[in-house]
């Protein structure tokens, strides 16, 4: 049965690849149907998609939260110095 499903439909490897394709580009109609059918039968890949979307949000939020700690005055002096050196 499992084998038959893989012939008729996508493998989990292919299905999760399509999830990423979907998130970053567009799926063809056939791919949409294949992915949909696969997810109906496969809990793991359904979770993969949900978690993948969650990770995207997570990565995007990292930089917003990171506190910036650098000595701006020091940086300004460094830049001025290197400019003078180059002239």
């Amino acid at each position, binding site marked *: 049965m*499992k*084998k038959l499903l*893989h012939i008729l439909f*996508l*493998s*989990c*490897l*292919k299905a*999760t*690849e399509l*999830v*990423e*394709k979907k*998130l*970053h*580009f567009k799926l063809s109609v056939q791919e949409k149907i294949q992915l949909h059918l696969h997810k109906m039968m496969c809990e*793991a*890949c359904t*979770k*993969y998609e*949900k*978690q*993948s979307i*969650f*990770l*995207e*949000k*997570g*990565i*995007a*939020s*990292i*930089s*917003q*939260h*990171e506190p*910036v*700690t*650098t000595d*701006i005055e020091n*940086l*300004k002096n*460094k*830049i*001025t110095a*290197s*400019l003078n050196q*180059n*002239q």
Partner: protein
Amino acid sequence: MKNTMLETWISQYTDALFRWAFHKTSSIEIAEDLVQDTFLAAAEKINNFKGDSSPKTWLFSILNHKIIDYYRKKVRQPLSLESSSNQTFFHEDGSWQQARKPKEWHEEDSNLLDDAEFRQILEKCLDALPEKWNTTVRMKYLTEKSSDDICQEMGIAPTNLWQIMHRAKLQLRDCIENKWFKK
């Protein structure tokens, strides 16, 4: 004249430029270098500055080019997609390895993304990715560029991009599952 102008710009815009560069690269050191390079380039090209745009806009456009160059250089070598990474997660027939199958995270139950500790783990797992995957992922999410633009800038095919994302996500979610959700 030129010098006073540049000096004024340095004192006025360094802060904003640095914040932007840091937001895009997540590295203090790299952000500082990029801002410095921006002013050096500005000094060289200052005769091109016609004053049609504000100095701030002009400096930011130089900085944005520097940021893209930085990422482009990092991924210049061909991106390797070892098929071995697939074998870690999938059987030969493409079905999940039992141990690597996504487990339930209940990630929506709490405001995980507001949790500093969780973000730290996520950052750690990102850093644990092979460098080129890490760069691609960061470039994708931190520069808010469209996927097509990124492919063009990095000189890779769309197929390549989503396959890199796929490999990177497999590792990333595995890392996070082990370091956070299993606890």
